[in-house]
């Protein structure tokens, strides 16, 4: 079974924050584990063009896919803009990562990415899911 664990710690407040939460990744509405994955991918972007990183598919609509995306740049000024169906989620700056449920609300619910620079910005990503619709050749 796939699991995802987050550990957050912060000394912003005088009483420090620290906790860990883990979760087995289940299919939508069940306790059956997600059983498919893209594996971990890496792309080095050399253009600032907005691209489809993960294509929404009919098999995934309303499901419980999980997505991890990380900006592996080491330059603090470099970021990627993450959008879903043209709605900006946020900016992943160098070293940032995100982990989201992705229910692919409809066929337009693609996850897109736009690098801020064209100078070899590395991004890693992975989805663990319960179905993708194969693209016909």
């Amino acid at each position, binding site marked *: 079974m796939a699991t*995802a664990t987050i550990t957050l710690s912060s000394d912003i407040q005088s009483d420090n924050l620290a906790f860990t939460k883990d979760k087995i990744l289940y299919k939508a509405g069940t306790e059956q*584990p997600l059983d498919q994955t893209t594996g*971990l991918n890496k792309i080095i972007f050399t253009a600032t063009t907005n691209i489809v990183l993960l294509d929404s598919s009919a098999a995934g609509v309303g499901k419980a896919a999980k997505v991890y995306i990380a900006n592996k740049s080491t330059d603090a000024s470099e970021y990627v803009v993450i959008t879903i169906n043209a709605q900006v989620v946020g900016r992943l*700056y160098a070293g940032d990562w995100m982990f989201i*449920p992705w229910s692919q609300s409809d066929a337009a619910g693609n996850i897109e990415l736009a690098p801020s620079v064209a100078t070899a910005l590395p991004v890693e990503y992975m989805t663990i899911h319960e179905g993708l619709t194969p693209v016909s050749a």
Partner: protein
Amino acid sequence: MAITTATINILNDVTGTGFSFSDTSTLFKAGNETGLDTVISAAKTFTSTSAVDLVAVTGFTASAANKVYIANTGTDSTEYFTIGIESEEVGRLYGGDWMFIPWDADTDDDITITPSVATAMTAEYIVFS
């Protein structure tokens, strides 16, 4: 400087040759290496299936490097929160699920939440900004 770190560990044994990895991020302000210095932490219990704002953009700097953690504290695998930004659905947090996102808090980019049932579902969230 305040130091906030977020670490994810993923065990992916979906494939025959499973693997695991860990990734730690120190949360900085946009474009520099100054730590985020504001935190809001809360829990809310919902007793209606109406869509409402969980975190509104009011008071946050736009185009910033805010980060948001949201968790469904429930244990029922059939009950979920639908999380959105403005009018776009991001995904569903089923019982025990959590998410961690960058949030630029631009105009109208409120984070919305919609419970699937009206029987006392609780969400916890933390905003670092």
